[in-house]
């Protein structure tokens, strides 16, 4: 019963791994991955010499670390607040609203963003004009996106994250809180001394999983929101969008393969390091 899935993963996951040799080849479609001639580190050379490597690596890591931290903080805070709410009806409605963005694609989100922010008809600019202020051209000003992208990330995922943490909070033994009440602890003390420490295992696992995605962060989001907008490129280009563009727009297979290889190696290093650190700190919480 394991055969179907084994075959699938061999074909779609393991076979392409052999294709990493492409990174060291002068690839042409006719000769294929294994028939094309070798060219050593030439593919890497351009990537590193052009300065692209630094820009995309920095963007990828910075954005994703910011995303992960904000996501964790917001999810936990929202979960704690939700756990305080007693009114069933209110809880149901708000949770539904918070969870809703999880269900739509980034394609739809990009329509939302256009709706709110485009220069001529966007709701933000309509408001600004009503107050007699100047409209802002968000689609060609890169620093807005440093704020906007993390905001959208949190907007889309916080409902999901808060459910994860809420499940962990609900699992906490009520007697601990009762004992704390008897000892005279107030609400704030219960949250900081009981809830948050007991959420730690969940936090560690989720952050560890999140770290695994730091190098492969949110291609969907970046591509749908920014696409090929040249004026935002330096501020928003990540490894995945660079690979995608070299593959689809410029058909530069060698470049795409070498950058992809670089990314895979970095991912592996990050995960192994993080896992190792967690392991040293507490064996039970490590992924493997």
């Amino acid at each position, binding site marked *: 019963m394991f055969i179907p899935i084994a075959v699938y993963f061999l074909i779609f996951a393991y076979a392409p791994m052999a294709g990493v040799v492409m990174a060291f080849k002068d690839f042409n479609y006719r000769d294929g991955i294994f028939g094309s001639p070798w060219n050593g580190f030439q593919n890497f050379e351009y990537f590193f010499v052009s300065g692209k490597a630094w820009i995309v690596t920095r963007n990828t890591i910075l954005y994703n670390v910011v995303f992960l931290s904000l996501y964790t903080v917001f999810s936990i805070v929202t979960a704690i607040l939700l756990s305080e709410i007693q009114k069933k009806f209110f809880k149901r*409605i708000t949770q539904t609203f918070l969870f809703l963005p999880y269900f*739509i694609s980034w394609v739809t989100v990009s329509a939302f963003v256009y709706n709110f922010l485009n220069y001529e008809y966007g709701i933000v600019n309509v408001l600004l004009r009503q107050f007699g202020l100047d409209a802002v051209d968000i689609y060609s000003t890169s620093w807005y996106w440093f704020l906007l992208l993390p905001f959208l990330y949190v907007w889309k995922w916080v409902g999901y994250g808060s459910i994860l943490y809420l499940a962990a909070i609900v699992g906490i033994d009520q007697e601990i809180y009762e004992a704390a009440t008897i000892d005279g602890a107030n609400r704030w003390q219960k949250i900081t001394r009981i809830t948050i420490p007991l959420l730690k295992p969940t936090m560690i696992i989720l952050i560890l999983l999140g770290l695994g995605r730091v190098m492969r962060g949110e291609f969907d989001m970046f591509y749908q929101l920014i696409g090929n907008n040249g004026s935002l490129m330096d501020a928003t280009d990540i490894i995945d969008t660079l690979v995608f563009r070299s593959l689809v727009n410029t058909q530069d297979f060698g470049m795409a393969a070498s950058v992809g290889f670089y990314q895979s190696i970095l991912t592996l290093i990050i995960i192994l390091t993080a896992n190792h650190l967690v392991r040293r700190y507490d064996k039970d919480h490590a992924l493997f």
Partner: protein
Amino acid sequence: MNAKKLNTSPLFSVLAYTIVGILSLITFAPFIVLIAGSFSSESAVLREGYWFWPRDFSFDAYAFIFRYPAEVLSAYRVSIIITVVGTVVGLLVSTMAAYVLYRKEVKYRNALAFFLFFTTLFNGGLAPFYIMITKYLELKNTLGVLILLPMFNVMFILILRSFIRGSIPEPLIESAKIDGAGEYRIFFQMVLPLSKPALASIGLFTALAYWNDWWTAMMFVDKDHLIPLQYMLYKMLSSVNMSSAMAQYAGAIDQPKETFKLAMTVIATGPILLLFPFVQKYFVKGVTIGAVKG
């Protein structure tokens, strides 16, 4: 429960209600603006911009889309086919794998689990993957590629395994075996029915992934009749002259462009928004199963 009531601190509760209320309004607002915009008249939007309720209520954008519905209906058909087929097959194969990983008798089950898990740690990168699919497997422009690529999620398989472990004790399987049931009979008559709650939630997650997938189509499909809804939406949002078929009729002067985009978004997202209240609890269950421990 009583202790909890005694416990409430009014100030904190007010704070919690207010903040949660505001957050949920922020997450909900874009949906309102989208729907309001799609029911606005084009000229009003061009004059005054989008707003939280329709400006000059009108069905023009929808009427425009459904004047020549062939393209939209074809995209709907593709999306529905890949979602249904992919979810059913993916779920069955995932559960079979999860069942193997759960059975203690399987000697190498940890190695097998790692065989799956490793693919999330390391991969060949997009370029070799692309070449593999197009050149060696010749899957470009097939329905198969749309169904196969989003089919599995290793995390889901591991979640299914923990669910089976938690809800079906090994002795139950042993006794069925003693009674003469074969592996397949045990799987289909015991494991599958007993895993229904997990199947429902993981199935919904898989279905959602299929419904929202635009990437596979963008990479591997360029035939009009194979384009799923989300990719069609992407193409329409990103191109000024809309898609090829629409462009033929675009000579019409009263062609709504701005509101058209929003109406298209509503049409592509609509089914999810309509189903959402009914299936939400299964999603929450799925998230929770995963949270208990993967």
